């Protein structure tokens, strides 16, 4: 008995099956002779009859997701007594629900903070030179230039649309300034089939996937061409054809939804994963914890990307959590995690590629904490100079800028020049201003869109309410905005 348990313990570790109270008969252990060898296992009489017919569990499971069979606690307890008899005082370990644990006679509390913080993976130094011995995924010239110009486009779009809000042309905006590397490099590491569930500071992913400046502007101006039909506030982009879920303002609600999307991919056995983003603040929400836990239990192919930019509106990370950032939380849920320099485009790209690979082939979640800084204000409703020093913001805007850092690397490879830079910036600016003009002049969605899509088809109460509204408008035409079609 003792021999069997010890041997299968190491095998169990390898097979990711659990022994003791919780038997996990997955397809691999089913074929393992050790598991069913009657000679070695004196517990077959206890567990065997409870085990029942394995084929009925495994037959219909479409994926590697193992069947679970919970045995009676009674049989487990008997097994425990037997083990104790056999092993006596030699074995310093015992079975509890959840697996085998070894004992210690030393009462030692695990420290709340490690002596050293988890190190951060980076590839490029501040001069844009690859650090010695750094391992990273090679990026072709074409890919690198696309990444670079997308980062510049994103920065330009943010700057100009922010100004547009300040001028009163749009009602709201929020920038991703300082986080361009995370936005673009993660997007570049994914395929168009990977489903993206954003928080709201990741328009760069949509930009990479082909969303045009016109489409962005249309949503911000809420005109007739907006895919959201003018119903949401600016920056709440969504596009099913780009596999980018519509932004929902609520924090962290996308985290468990990501598990659901991954569940769907798993059922269909698609060669794709789900990627979801959230900030440091989002990790305090209950949905973060439950979502990560679910992903681990369900073996869901999700890549969780935390943009730890140091601030949740005015709350610094020191007031958000007391752990060593977000990366250590992955371990708590049984999720492989890594900490990455979020302002290093190559590091972000490599880590995301690797994470995606693992998530799909091994069908499990991965957590990536990307350290960065929120250079802009939280949104146009915020003035961050009220709660943080201006020189801190300046430092991150200039010396720690992810775009200029990547530029240096691109330059050193001889792929870019100052002339290219100024041409690009002028072009993007022109395109964007044009797009904004078009979007501003375009017609707004008609009043009928107020009532459609609440349900699949218009129910009677909404028909009634629409009629009442139209009557009101007819009676008071002077109070109704002239640029909104009826």
């Amino acid at each position, binding site marked *: 008995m003792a021999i069997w348990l010890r041997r299968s313990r190491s095998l169990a570790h390898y097979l990711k099956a659990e022994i003791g109270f919780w038997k996990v008969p997955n397809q691999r252990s089913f074929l393992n002779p050790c598991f069913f060898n009657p000679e070695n296992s004196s517990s077959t009489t206890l567990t065997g009859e409870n085990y029942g017919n394995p084929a*009925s*569990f495994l*037959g*219909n*499971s*479409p*994926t590697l*997701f*193992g*069947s*679970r*069979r*919970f045995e009676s606690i009674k049989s487990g307890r008997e097994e425990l007594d037997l083990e104790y008899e056999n092993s006596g005082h030699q074995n310093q370990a015992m079975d509890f629900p959840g697996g085998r644990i070894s004992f210690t006679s030393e009462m030692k509390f695990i420290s709340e903070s490690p002596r050293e913080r988890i190190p951060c993976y980076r590839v490029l130094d501040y001069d844009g030179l690859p650090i010695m011995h750094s391992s990273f995924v090679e990026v072709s010239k074409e890919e690198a230039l696309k990444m670079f110009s997308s980062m510049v486009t994103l920065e330009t779009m943010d700057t100009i649309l922010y100004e547009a809000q300040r001028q009163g042309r749009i009602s709201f905006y929020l920038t991703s300034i300082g986080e361009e590397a995370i936005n673009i490099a993660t997007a570049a590491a994914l395929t168009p089939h990977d*489903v993206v*569930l954003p928080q709201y500071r990741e328009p760069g992913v949509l930009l990479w996937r082909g969303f045009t400046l016109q489409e962005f502007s249309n949503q911000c101006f809420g005109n007739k061409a*907006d*895919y*959201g*039909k003018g*119903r*949401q506030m600016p920056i*709440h982009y*969504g596009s*099913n054809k780009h596999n980018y*879920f*519509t932004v*929902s*303002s*609520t924090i962290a*609600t*996308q*985290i*468990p*939804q*990501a*598990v*659901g*999307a*991954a*569940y*769907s*991919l798993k*059922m*269909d056995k698609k060669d794709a994963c*789900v990627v979801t983003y959230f900030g440091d603040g989002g990790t305090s929400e*209950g*949905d973060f*914890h*439950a*979502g990560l836990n*679910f992903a681990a*239990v*369900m073996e869901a192919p999700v890549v969780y990307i935390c943009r730890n930019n140091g601030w949740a509106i005015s709350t610094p990370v020191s007031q958000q959590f007391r752990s060593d950032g977000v990366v250590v939380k992955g371990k708590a849920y049984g999720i492989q995690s890594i900490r990455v320099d979020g302002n290093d485009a190559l590091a972000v790209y490599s880590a995301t590629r690797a994470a995606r690979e693992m998530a799909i082939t091994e069908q499990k979640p991965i957590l990536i904490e990307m350290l960065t800084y929120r250079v802009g204000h939280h949104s146009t409703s915020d003035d961050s100079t009220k709660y943080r020093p201006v020189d801190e913001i300046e430092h991150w805007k200039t010396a720690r800028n992810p775009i200029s850092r990547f530029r240096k690397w691109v330059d050193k490879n001889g792929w870019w020049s100052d002339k290219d830079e100024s041409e690009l910036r002028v072009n993007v600016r022109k395109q964007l201003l044009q797009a904004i003009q078009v979007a501003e002049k375009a017609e707004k969605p008609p009043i009928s869109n107020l009532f*459609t*899509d*609440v*349900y*699949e088809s218009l*129910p*009677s109460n909404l028909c009634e309410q629409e009629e009442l509204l139209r009557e009101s408008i007819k009676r008071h035409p002077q109070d109704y905005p002239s640029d909104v079609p009826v």
Partner: protein
Amino acid sequence: MERDARVCVIGEDVGHYGGSYKVTKDLANKYGDLRVLDTPIAENSFTGMAIGAAMTGLRPIIEGMNMGFLLLAFNQISNNCGMLHYTSGGQFTIPVVIRGPGGVGRQLGAEHSQRLESYFQSIPGIQMVACSTPYNAKGLMKAAIRSENPVILFEHVLLYNLKERIPDEEYVLNLEEAEMVRPGEHITILTYSRMRYHVMQAAKTLVNKGYDPEVIDIRSLKPFDLHTIGNSVKKTHRVLIVEECMRTGGIGASLTTAINENFHDYLDAPVVCLSSQDVPTPYAGTLEEWTVVQPTQIVTAVEQLCH
């Protein structure tokens, strides 16, 4: 689940355990552990998970072990489930079914005796139905699963043991239709879920006393089937609503308003609504019995209305 491979069940203990009221019994054996998924205890999260799955093409059925626990899922239900079809401009649909046992049972305690229909009724974008017999439970469930809208299906803890002969052939009921239980002439009694049985019991007494009540099980809690209800009001001119919800902000409150606004010309008397009191459900059996509307109270109310 047999007809459509995209249908799956997500909830706590729905797999091999078969669900807290055995609604999903044996489904895990038939369809596997992935399609009948046991989740950790986090209602907001597995509801969110189902929403994400629905947006990616599946048709999940979320089971709340007890409806009351779905209060934890309110954020996902209101802010995402009800909203995302609208805010995405129709790009994403959320064809989920949210179901579970609710209502006042036999001494389950206040936290397990919630009537969530009153809390959820305001959420735009969702539909609500309540089943009351094996026949309509099957028909409404099928309709809910096939609907492209998110539907909340309210089951009642005390009605799971009902037995009834139902057709072998496939049938799907209309989610927005009320059920005429007993046609009559004197008074319209509107009810749903368990209270239907109290009403029918009262109806027996009333018939013996010479009254002819028309009993309608409204079934569709959002939106109301004002067509069937209206026709009845136009015939009888008197309305009594019998519900298990609490008095304040319940389904009865909304229904009273709807009837008054639409049919007040046809009413000979004000609409009367019998509901549970605005108290948490006590554990003591005798007290619990008197927080739900009893047949004797229904009889008295009818007698007073028809006076």
